[in-house]
């Protein structure tokens, strides 16, 4: 019975793996018992199934009932995603700060001078940025818990089980990965605009940091790409599904991002001789310019994938 399978799938999606199979199995058994009791000799009609599922409640409500009651800053439903985002973000930040520190050392006139003090400074920066990042992540998830209503049962108008997505629906927007993308982008935006001096990026036009002009000239474009991406993620989180319009929006954001990355890579490549003249070893400046070109290459690959998805869905008649 397709409606029941779709319903059970939606409930299961919102449960931790440890509960999923057992709860689905038990719910399935209960639904069959109930339908057997209600059905006529010909078996339950679709309307019988719809009525029963509506009485049982929206999948989100049913899944939420398996979480312990209580008030949370970040509730049980969101907690696994919160931990995942926290671990990956803090690890990535530590790696980024360490890489920026290494580059600064190599570019400087005396790489090993006062190394102990400078390492202490690195640890202090990791601590400061890490603490702020933790606060940002907690705030975002607390907001999702309360304002977005993602962590708790929502009062909702009457819903139709026939509108539930099919099992294995390719247009379903995965909640975990969408939340992850949203939080990481928010974090990146905060660091880029508030703590960029900590990761070796320019603060103002007079800064002596390398590639000063390249970064500052393109900062507003980078912010625009990140904000557009966050807006799309927020919409997907609310709607739960990809549509043609959101896929096209994804492609438009990819294109703009590719344009910005290309501009930056071209500007960095144009400044290679300046980097070498400033004392950066030739090998390191080559790594910098290669990395700068790698970013638009990766974005182009994402763009190809997203365009491919739209074409594929169009050919399927969706």
């Amino acid at each position, binding site marked *: 019975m397709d409606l029941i399978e779709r319903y059970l799938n939606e409930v299961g999606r919102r449960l931790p793996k440890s509960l999923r199979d057992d709860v689905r199995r038990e719910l399935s*058994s*209960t639904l069959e*018992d109930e339908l057997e009791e209600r059905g006529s000799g010909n078996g339950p009609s679709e309307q019988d199934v719809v009525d029963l599922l*509506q009485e*049982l*409640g*929206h999948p989100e*409500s049913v899944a939420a*009932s398996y979480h*312990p009651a209580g008030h949370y800053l970040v509730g049980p439903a969101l907690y696994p995603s919160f931990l995942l985002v926290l671990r990956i973000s803090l690890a990535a930040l530590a790696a980024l700060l360490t890489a920026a520190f290494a580059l600064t050392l190599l570019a400087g006139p005396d790489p090993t001078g006062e190394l102990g003090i400078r390492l202490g400074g690195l640890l202090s920066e990791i601590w400061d940025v890490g603490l702020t990042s933790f606060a940002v992540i907690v705030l975002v998830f607390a907001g999702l818990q309360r304002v977005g209503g993602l962590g708790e049962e929502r009062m909702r108008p009457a819903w139709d089980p026939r509108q539930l997505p099919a099992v294995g629906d390719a247009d379903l927007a995965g909640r975990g990965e969408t939340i992850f993308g949203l939080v990481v982008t928010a974090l990146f935006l905060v660091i880029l605009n508030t703590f960029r001096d900590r990761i070796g990026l320019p603060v103002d036009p007079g800064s002596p940091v390398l590639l000063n002009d390249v970064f500052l000239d393109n900062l507003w474009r980078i912010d625009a790409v990140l904000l557009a991406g966050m807006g799309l993620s927020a919409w997907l989180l609310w709607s739960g599904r990809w549509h043609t319009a959101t896929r096209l929006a994804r492609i438009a954001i990819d294109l703009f991002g590719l344009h910005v990355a290309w501009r930056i890579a071209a500007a960095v490549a144009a400044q290679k001789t300046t980097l070498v003249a400033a004392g950066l070893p030739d090998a390191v400046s080559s790594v910098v310019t290669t990395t700068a070109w790698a970013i638009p290459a990766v974005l182009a690959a994402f763009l190809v994938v997203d365009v491919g998805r739209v074409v594929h869905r169009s050919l399927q008649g969706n």
Partner: protein
Amino acid sequence: MNDGATTPSLADKLALELRRGTLVLATLSQLRSPRYGYSLLRRLADRGLEIEQGTLYPLLRRLAEQGVLEARWNVDGSRPRKYYQLSRAGLEAMEGLTGEWNALVDVMTGLLEDPQRKG
């Protein structure tokens, strides 16, 4: 669990809170012998206690996790069913709760019969 558009009245909400406090004891009282969730639901309803599936099943799971109930799947019947029964600890807990309930009924009866309440 009904997700219809009507909002419960204040009296309904308070009544729900009152009933919520009795659910654990009511559930335990019917599980001296093994029952699966749906049959327990029907048994409680037949005895005057309507409880929603969305309330009962999570409660049974929680009580099983706490060791108050023993749970096992039975695949012998027409469909697999998860049966619940009081554990030894659950039996002791139920007897304790029954004593608490009887004491509470006496207290509440006294409070509700208090001449001062009737003005």
